[in-house]
């Protein structure tokens, strides 16, 4: 047994951290919140060059051939730096094609997704908070998709859209196809835009092994959201420590007050042990499939709660400045709100996990 990260994994994370510090510091992220889409093609190319757009794609399709744990480690760093752009949806679309596609479908889409030339996304939810594949209403009839999908990450810049279809299938729509319209949704997290996509007979192709891919994509999404929230929360604690170290009140450094010290200690005590939890949850998707869905749900719920506590307390610890747009804390706060809500909040996830238990 070996329950730790490899040197390669640690180096990958450090490399992405450095890239984001240099190419996409949080001040730039904040500036971009008002932009039309928060997508920087140059940054995307750099991520692609590092092999990150094809992280989980096998080498035979031009990818790096890593596992979901690596994808989650990338999500952690993306959360730390509040990385804007389509990475989240891209990873899930890639996974859907990888696990759900037949040989021809993989060969058709994976190389461009791996190289980053194509941006992928996933159209999972439907209006009215429908996240459960059993309730999907979008239809695929005669090779054409019709219906409305909600909360599609960065749909407006996607080349390949994986769409959940009534009956629990997944179909691929290429953005060059006709017959769909994209309506931007005014999302709370402006680093990861989400859109409503209305399909009206768009040409599409069903993935051959959709039934296999659907649960894996859902579990992976839950774990990636958890890892992202974990990264966000860690940064918020660090940013808060840095901010308070610089501030004085009553001629005393704020971090010398036990009130602040103990609050931060309580928060990090809730968070840090969950690192090993999402490591395991990611690992389980590839290696312990029987345990994967239940642990993914538990992990998403648990880290959503711990990171939310951190977000709300760290905003308050910034005092009035924490309430401003100028401070960057709200960037992570809102990203954690996204991570908490997407695919359903802690209560929904715990209800699912309980249903999956052998009690």
């Amino acid at each position: 047994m070996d329950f730790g990260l490899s040197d390669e994994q640690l180096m990958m994370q450090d490399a992405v951290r450095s890239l984001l510090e240099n190419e996409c510091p949080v001040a730039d992220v904040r500036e971009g919140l008002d932009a039309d889409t928060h997508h920087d093609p140059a940054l995307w190319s750099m991520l692609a060059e590092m092999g990150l757009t094809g992280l989980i794609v096998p080498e035979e399709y031009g990818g790096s051939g890593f596992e979901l744990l690596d994808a989650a480690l990338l999500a952690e760093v993306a959360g730390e730096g509040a990385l804007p752009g389509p990475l989240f949806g891209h990873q899930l679309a890639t996974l859907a094609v990888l696990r759900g596609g037949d040989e021809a479908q993989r060969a058709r889409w994976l190389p461009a997704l791996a190289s980053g030339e194509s941006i992928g996304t996933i159209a999972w939810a439907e209006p009215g908070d429908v996240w459960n594949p059993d309730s999907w209403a979008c239809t695929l009839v005669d090779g054409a998709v019709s219906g409305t999908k909600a909360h599609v990450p960065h749909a407006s810049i996607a080349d390949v859209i994986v769409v959940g279809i009534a009956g629990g299938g997944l179909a691929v729509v290429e953005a060059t196809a006709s017959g769909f319209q994209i309506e931007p949704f005014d999302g709370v997290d402006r680093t990861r835009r989400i859109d409503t996509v209305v399909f009206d007979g768009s040409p599409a192709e069903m993935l051959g092994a959709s039934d296999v891919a659907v649960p894996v994509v859902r579990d992976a999404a839950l774990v990636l959201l958890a890892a992202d929230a974990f990264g966000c929360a860690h940064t918020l604690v660090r940013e808060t420590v840095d901010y308070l170290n610089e501030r004085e009140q009553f001629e005393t450094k704020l971090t010398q007050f036990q009130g602040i010290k103990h609050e931060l200690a309580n928060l990090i005590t809730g968070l840090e042990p969950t690192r090993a939890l999402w490591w395991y949850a990611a690992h389980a998707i590839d290696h312990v499939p029987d345990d994967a869905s239940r642990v993914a749900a538990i992990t998403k719920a648990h880290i959503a709660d711990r990171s939310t506590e951190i977000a709300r307390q760290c905003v308050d610890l910034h005092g009035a400045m924490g309430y401003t747009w100028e401070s960057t804390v709200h960037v992570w706060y809102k990203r954690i709100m996204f991570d908490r809500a997407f695919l359903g909040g802690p209560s929904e996830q715990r209800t699912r996990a309980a249903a999956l238990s052998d009690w």
Partner: protein
Amino acid sequence: MDLEFGEHHARLRDEVEAFLTANWPSDDVRAFRRKAIDVGYLYRHFPAVYGGSEQPADPMADDIIESAFTAARAPQGIIGQGPDMVVPTLLMSGNDAQRERFIEPTLLGDISWCQGYSEPTAGSDLASLRSKAELDGDEWVVNGHKIWTSDADTSDWMFGLFRTEPDQPRHHGITFLLIPMDQPGIEVTPIQSMTGETEFCEVFLTDARTSIDCQVGERGGGWGVSRNLLVHERNLMGFRTQQLFESMLELARTRQMNGAPAIEDAGVRRSLIEIEGELLAAKYSRYRSLTNSARGNPDPNAALAGVVKKLHASTMAKKLTQLGLDLAGADEGLRAQGDASVDLGRANEPGGWTANYLFTHSSAIGGGAPNIQRNIIGERGLGLPRDLRTPKESTPST
């Protein structure tokens, strides 16, 4: 203890409804308010001589009037820092001329106010403020920089604290001044909040001027004047959670959870009751506090109840909005505030729960950050000794 809904309450309800039928809608909001004050329905706790209606404390009567006015969508008292902060301050520390000049116009909305209190380097630690005023003949000349000022861009006057005796330390040598906003020496810059709105402003004062008649209390005695003010501000910051709770019940009835309305989920039901427990505690604490003031403070634990109020309200608001946002589901959890506001009657409109959720953080501004509240509770409420501080300078008591 007497909480009977007596005959006089039933009579009052009828009278209020008759009054509203007769007088509202009306084109002249100001005249409507004046009439409502005269019959004793608005500003019930302010003296009649300065434009209030001077009624005995009766929260049940307050509730009856507020419900009827709300149902009729009739204007109630001006919400804001004028009636809630400036008027009580002038009643306690102003002179007669100031009361005559400012109180009634404030209550009727003729004069609006903003607060010049916090500064970039003096947030919770107000005693370190730097903006200063110097006497030039019979005018104060003011220079400095205020921040977190709500509505500074639309207000007629500012009330605030300014250092007038620069050689005195900390909270000594500070004077409470009223300053007209419409003058060349004042520049206002909005601050965008995390919600995307601009609730607060920065105010730059450069040789701004105000008459010595606009000094409230003694020169150098502004700290004492402002302490009274703080008490009132903390009341104002209380979150109107009852209405938000009603919205949450409505939400729980309509939202589906596991194929049934959320309100049928055993855990949701208990969570709602848990929050209702906090709300009821806050409601009856308010009754208790009003009764206690009316009687001249015989309640031996009233001071403790007073100092915990704000932290209790903000803790409660956080729990409530978290449950509301979660109950509203992912569609709402993913949504920006957008055009929604913290209008409590509209929480279930798109963005409404997000708006209320984010707004709970605004309490860090003005009324003092939560940790400052905890210090006040520990020291004034429980009699604990003061914090250790860097021994550089002995700090006078705040």
